[in-house]
């Protein structure tokens, strides 16, 4: 069951003042090193790419590795001069892409 992430982003920020973005994504982050009951390798399935942009301009990006635990939690800070739409996007090894959008107003 695909479930939306827990996302915390302020809807209003002050121009140029850093704010925190936090996201918790449900994902098994299967390492590719584990074996199943009959000895077969369980295929790797991790979120490998995470990107965050505002109106097309990148504010944060991360490449995740198999060592990251299941249900990864990412926190980073960003700063805006103008109001815009923040797009958080991630892709896993099965090619599943997901995205969240939040409108942020600079006041």
């Amino acid at each position, binding site marked *: 069951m695909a*479930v939306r*992430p827990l996302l*915390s982003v302020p809807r209003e920020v002050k121009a140029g003042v850093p704010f925190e973005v936090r996201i*918790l994504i*449900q994902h098994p982050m299967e390492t590719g090193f584990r074996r199943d009951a009959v000895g077969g390798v369980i295929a790797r399935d991790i979120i490998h790419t995470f990107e965050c942009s505002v109106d097309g301009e990148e504010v944060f990006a991360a490449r995740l590795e198999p060592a990251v*635990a*299941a249900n990864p*939690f990412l926190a980073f800070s960003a700063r805006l001069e103008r109001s815009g739409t923040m797009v958080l996007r991630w892709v896993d090894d099965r090619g599943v892409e997901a995205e969240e959008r939040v409108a942020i107003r600079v006041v």
Partner: protein
Amino acid sequence: MWRSAWCRALALLLATLPAGAQEKRSGYDDAGPQVRAMQDDDMANPAFLWVRQGEALWERREGMAGRSCADCHGAVEGMRGVAARHPEFDAARGRVVTLEQRVNLCRTDYQGAAALAPESDALLGITALVGLQSRGMPVAVEVEGAAAAAVARGEAFFRLRQGQLNLSCAQCHDGLAGQSLAGSRIPQGHANAYPIYRLEWQGMGSLHRRLRACLVGVRAEPLGRDDGLLADLELFLAARAAGLVVETPGVRP
């Protein structure tokens, strides 16, 4: 791996068994600062991913009756206090019913739907959602009257030495609580935060799964999920935790 570590570490600990009652402490108090910080923040507690699934299920019409939990129960906030008094002795059924069982009884008897599978995201999610409504309330189960015999059976099991290590729950969780065992601190073994997100599991699990780990740890036979004794034990654990607050959904190492 940690099971054999348990054996070696225990030999040392049992030699220095302390006596006397301790103040009640939740497993939260024995967890490290990082684990506590995760539990304190609903946006950092992964269990809330399951709570979200529970919220969707609460509203979904299911089964032959085509009714959702909300159709009969209204807003889920109305479930406040329910988890704090579960498990409870159900007079009509003549046995103790845990919160998970209660949910599945509504599925089968009132929704005409299949019971949710043990440890499924759906069952953990809906139980966590109902449990969350009682967060902060003291655990207060009924132990008198018809429940008394069940509590006594649960307590007897708690004090029974079992498994190849020949240990009782009480020896670890009363006698050795606060000591460290193979790198982890032995908690008093209260069940006031279930279902939990456990870092070692990298996922969510029920109290049954936790108890299974303890029983396998002493190399005893785990209790079956539908064994009435499991519900009795869960009721005794709740009685033993009386006064601690419900933390559902908790985070544990």
